[in-house]
């Protein structure tokens, strides 16, 4: 009857890839809406096209991988049937809405649409759908019968994964986004600062919330299937990978070498894979 993290690799892939996609889109949207270059040159939309295509591809790949979690993937079309109470239905609804907006914006970029209020509104709406997608994804896990998930750790960790990995992913591929070096440097500043802030917040969340998951045992809870002491290697390695990501981000800023941002993304990605593995591993519900 028990669920183990080993069985949940499709969900680890789905959640992390989706969060990368949303975070990367937020970065592209910010670069477009507040952009230093668009205002000056009025041509940014075309430049974000590769980024938008990659975001859409990530979402499709995430959804495809999540099918491996389903016992009956051919029936997946039924998943929207319970929007009234099921956060899983809502998650998929917002994922589809987000994907549709990203595709629409990619179309605008491809057609070299002007930076009109309509396009800007579409970016804002898509960003909102992305946020609702992540929110419903976290609410899905916040079951009142699963104390380890029914807390702030779940939404915070999901949003922070997006805010860390998304900008780093966008930065790692920034050569495709920016033609002129001065744009890339400004982008690099923003990404570096936001990624460092995300790392700081993730460490704070780890310190404040993760131990409570491991040591949880209410009077009516079943025994943890994942002993608390086994959490520590995961936590230590997660922190080490985060430290490596910070190192690469700082170094990147100094020497302006794109490969270092890829290394930062890989390090941060490894940290978040460990964190997400742990998230599923500590599943333990109240009762029997």
């Amino acid at each position, binding site marked *: *009857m028990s669920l183990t993290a080993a069985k949940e690799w499709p969900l680890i892939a789905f959640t992390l890839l989706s969060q990368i996609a949303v975070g990367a889109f937020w970065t592209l949207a910010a670069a477009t809406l507040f952009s230093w270059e668009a205002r000056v040159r009025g041509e940014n939309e075309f430049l974000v096209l590769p980024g938008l295509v990659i975001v859409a591809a990530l979402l499709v790949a995430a959804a495809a991988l999540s099918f491996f979690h389903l016992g009956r993937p051919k*029936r997946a079309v039924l998943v929207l049937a319970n929007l009234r*109470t099921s956060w*899983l239905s809502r998650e998929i609804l917002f994922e589809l809405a987000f994907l549709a907006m990203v595709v629409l914006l990619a179309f605008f970029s491809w057609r070299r649409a002007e930076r009109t209020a309509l396009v800007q509104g579409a970016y804002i709406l898509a960003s909102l759908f992305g946020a609702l997608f992540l929110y419903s994804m976290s609410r899905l896990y916040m*079951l009142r019968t699963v104390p380890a998930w029914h807390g702030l750790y779940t939404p915070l960790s999901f949003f922070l994964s997006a805010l860390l990995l998304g900008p780093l992913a966008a930065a790692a591929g920034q050569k495709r986004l920016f033609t002129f070096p001065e744009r890339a440097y400004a982008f690099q500043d923003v990404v570096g600062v936001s990624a460092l802030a995300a790392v700081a917040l993730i460490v704070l969340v780890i310190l404040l919330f993760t131990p409570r998951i491991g040591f949880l045992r209410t009077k*009516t809870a079943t025994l943890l299937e994942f002993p608390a002491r086994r959490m520590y290697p995961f936590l230590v390695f997660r922190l080490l990978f985060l430290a490596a990501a910070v190192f690469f981000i700082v170094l990147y800023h100094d020497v302006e070498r794109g490969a270092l941002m890829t290394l930062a993304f890989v390090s941060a990605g490894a940290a978040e894979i460990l964190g997400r593995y742990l998230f599923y591993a500590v599943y333990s519900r109240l*009762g*029997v």
Partner: protein
Amino acid sequence: MEQQAWVRQYAFTFDSSSCTGCKACQVACKDKHDLPVDILWRRVYEVTGGTWKKEGGVWVPAVLSYYLSMACHHCQKPICGEACPTQAIYKRDDGIVMLETLACIGCRYCEWACPYGAIQFDPASRVVTKCHFCYDYLALGEPPACVAACPMRALDFGDLSELRKKYAGTREIFPLPEASLTEPALIIKPHRDAARASKDTAEVANWEEI
């Protein structure tokens, strides 16, 4: 008891003080529904605990042990149905929580959520399964298989409001969760050791069986 039109919420009662842990209910359920290995719609949990205690100058055993026969409790707030994205899990007018297996996508979200272990994934059919209160027997005016099989008459069933008049009991007993989480349609007459169980760090002793 015959199926009655006025039933608003079918419920089970369980007398933990008279259960001997023979598992006849578990076997009858498995037999009736032809359940595969590793699937038990009704499960008998063996709760044990306690230790040695010093009384005067003598160490004496202060141990506890009792059984819990648990199936789906057809909750009034079924969290499994709330979670199910396809509405495969729904509540009938008589309170029975039903599962439409043809609408199940096997996401197992309901299995995560149910605090009674009532939802179980069948690897062969790739969907979840659960107790349906032997609704087919009810339609024939017969009791559920588990109730009929119990040699100690520790199990009973009926409309929840009628059962509450007949039995005094609780819905919270170690290791079950707070009833307010899902409002299970269940009445348990607790074993005399049950009050001590949570204090004396009792455990379920037969996880490998269930």
